[in-house]
């Protein structure tokens, strides 16, 4: 039972780390909105994490020693930073769109607050068990 709580807390930990990194990268993009030749950076981790969570039940079997390891463990998932240098619609070679960056920033902050709330409720559950179990 306790392991279940711990798994959830580890998962939230991972998500919060990813969201925090994304906040930093968005701030970096906004700071460089007027820098010539700067290309915007993006952080992605949700799709990998979702994949790992949905496949954690079905254990993939390695039938060859050269098979790549499949990250079924959420601990192995690292956020990826990608440089988006495919396009640019300004003469100075910069491709930061300040409006989408501000929208992403707002989304990211709300997401962070939501995950923190869930994490707090997870701790509340443990606390509840400790308090009420003794009665």
């Amino acid at each position, binding site marked *: 039972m306790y392991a279940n709580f711990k798994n959830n807390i580890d998962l939230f930990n991972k998500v*919060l780390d990813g969201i925090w990194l994304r906040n930093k990268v968005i701030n970096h993009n*906004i700071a460089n909105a007027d820098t*010539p030749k*700067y290309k915007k950076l993006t952080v992605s981790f949700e799709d990998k994490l979702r994949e790992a969570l949905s496949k954690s039940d079905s254990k993939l079997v390695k039938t060859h020693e050269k098979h790549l390891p499949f990250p079924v463990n959420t601990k192995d998932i690292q956020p990826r930073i990608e*440089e988006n240098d495919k396009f640019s619609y300004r003469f100075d070679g910069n491709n930061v769109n*300040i409006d989408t960056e501000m929208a992403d920033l707002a989304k990211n902050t709300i997401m962070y607050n939501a995950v923190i709330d869930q994490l707090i409720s997870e*701790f509340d559950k443990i606390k509840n068990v400790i308090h009420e179990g003794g009665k």
Partner: protein
Amino acid sequence: MGMFDSINISASALTAQKTRIDIISKNMANVNTTRSTGGMPYRRQMVVFEEQRGPSFSSYLEKHTNRFNGKGVEISEIVEDTTPFKLKYEPGHPDANEDGYVMLPNVDMVTEMVNMIDAQRAYEANITAINGTKSMLMKALEISRR
């Protein structure tokens, strides 16, 4: 991964945009200055922004290890605009040449105004980013309050 890196990144942009506004104010104040360094009219100045991202090797390494050590933006240099001076026919002016023309600074008031609005908006965007980061940090402190 420092705790206040995000705020430092936005603060670097605030400094850069503030310097840009300072330079724009200087240009606007000197829009009619005919006597600057070397007896020439005032030349319009511009700031050059550059991404701050650590040494080149570590920025190459970070691309392949998914680490991030961006530090925001900085002003790498302040350059002079080399476009020619404006000429104005004003024979009575003490700085007029033999044909009666005065050389005036290459400052265009409208361009400066537009650049100032741009800098102000960028400044505000970074203030919003700092406030967002602040609210996230305060929220994270709530975990330990229970």
